């Protein structure tokens, strides 16, 4: 996905070499592995392991098309990736809303936390995939089932981190805020929430990864559409190239989501990133 920027012949040698070298340093291992795969698994070598060129070819061809009318995606994308992405978005949004909302309440209101803490520890420690059978029974093979599992599994890290973020508010900051006679709402919006936000974001980032896992897992077992469904269906019909192409799709999706999240985080938490980088001087 790296696009070289056109450079004039008189561009300073250092300037135009620096970036490609950095990019090369970051991706050389991936390139080596892809080439090794290609050389090892020639066509016909293994049924399960098609050549990398075939996988990447299928990946591009199955999911994307050069047609603006189709928004550059295939029907295969529309019928399988779109439902998956919707489930992921819904489930993760629910998890974020519940995790942040309940986390703020529990972080501020200590008695409630003491009361609910054992339950939270239990919920957090239970692998969410273990809930899959019961969620299927309750919701049936529906998108709500996938959404419910994603939401249930990815709430915990947001919840725990939000509680922790609220509770780790610096006592000096509390005193400073009190000495400024901030009202409840000003204290919440101007002090408590910004102070907790780095940890809330940490929780959201972890939960995004969990949500992606649960999206795939829940679709592997119970779905009539979606990326996970494509994987299982391809496997059972011995179309392993298609299976691999779906795996590549999920991998790329994970990378993209993480990248997008990082962009948002860098914007919202600019003060945090830059102040900790410059810390140490007097």
């Amino acid at each position, binding site marked *: 996905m790296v696009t070289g920027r056109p450079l004039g012949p008189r561009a300073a040698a250092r300037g135009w070499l620096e970036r490609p070298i950095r990019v090369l340093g970051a991706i050389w291992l991936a390139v080596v592995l892809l080439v090794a795969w290609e050389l090892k698994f020639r066509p016909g070598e293994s049924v399960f392991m098609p050549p990398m060129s075939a996988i990447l070819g299928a990946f591009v061809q199955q999911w994307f098309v050069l047609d603006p009318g189709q928004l550059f995606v295939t029907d295969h994308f529309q019928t399988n990736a779109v439902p998956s992405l919707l489930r992921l978005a819904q489930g993760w949004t629910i998890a974020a809303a519940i995790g942040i909302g309940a986390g703020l309440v529990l972080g501020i209101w200590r008695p409630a936390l003491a009361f609910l803490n054992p339950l939270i520890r239990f919920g957090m420690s239970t692998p969410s995939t273990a809930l899959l059978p019961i969620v299927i029974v309750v919701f049936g093979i529906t998108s709500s089932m996938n959404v419910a599992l994603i939401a249930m599994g990815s709430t915990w890290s947001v919840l725990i981190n939000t509680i922790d973020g609220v509770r780790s508010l610096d006592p000096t900051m509390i005193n400073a805020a009190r000495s*400024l*006679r901030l009202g409840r709402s000003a204290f919440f919006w101007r002090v408590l929430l910004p102070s907790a936000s780095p940890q809330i974001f940490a929780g959201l980032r972890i939960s995004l990864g969990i949500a992606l896992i649960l999206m795939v897992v829940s679709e592997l077992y119970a779905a009539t559409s979606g990326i996970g469904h494509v994987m299982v269906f391809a496997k059972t019909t011995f179309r392993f190239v298609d299976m691999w192409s779906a795996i590549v799709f999920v991998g790329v999706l994970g990378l993209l989501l993480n990248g997008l999240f990082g962009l948002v985080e860098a914007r919202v938490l600019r003060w945090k990133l830059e102040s900790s980088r410059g810390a140490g001087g007097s």
Partner: protein
Amino acid sequence: MTDALLAVDRLSKSYATRAGTIKAIDEISFTVRPGEFLSIVGPSGCGKTTLLMLLAGLLPVSGGTVRVRGLEVRGTPPNMAIVFQDYSRSLFPWLTNERNVALALHGARLSKAEARDRTYKALAEVGLTGFERIYPWQLSGGMQQRVAIARALVVSPEVLLMDEPFASVDAQTRATLEDLLLEVWRQSKTTIVFVTHDIDEAVYLSDRVVVLSKGPSHVVTEIQDELPRPRDQIVTKEEPLFAKLRGEVFGLVMGARRHAAEERRS
């Protein structure tokens, strides 16, 4: 007593710990006149910061009263402002300098323009014009403490409480900030209660120095500081009276420490 702006009367503070009740402050009484610069010094660990938190209404008292203009302090009153020692934790890193200062005006119900004017004026008073739109952590420590002072000044407080405000900056910056504070004090005519462990600093700045004993702390004595004003880092510190006062306070602080050690031994 009627002319006191701040009156502290038999103020006590105890903490309950697992080992029993620990008395940190034992019946401290003193008054501060309007416009006065009062310093509080004492051996380290004598509860100076605790005392300041009590004066600010940020800690509940165990006994006695703190009154500002006759009204008992419960929570920081609107005519009081505080500068904390640790600027890195009393300023909010997610707010620009301007917004940090303006936050003090939050409850004042001012128009946007007026709040902005007062904020810029307060930052100008501490010499930070041009630094309004950047963040505190982009400034040096001394400049960050200037932001904290501006945030205190912006509400035009009658009483300004300062808790070892210059303890975390280097010596040169400290001298500059001391003189800045004296200038701000002269212009604003505010009353300052200044907690410090630095005896030179207390003598250099104050009208009066209150010496506390080692904990449980009580007032050992008060010393009038009649060094001529305006004060100057070189001229004032070369005055024989400066040396005399410095020696006197030093003796009292060390005496307080020795006294406490003897008490423990007996």
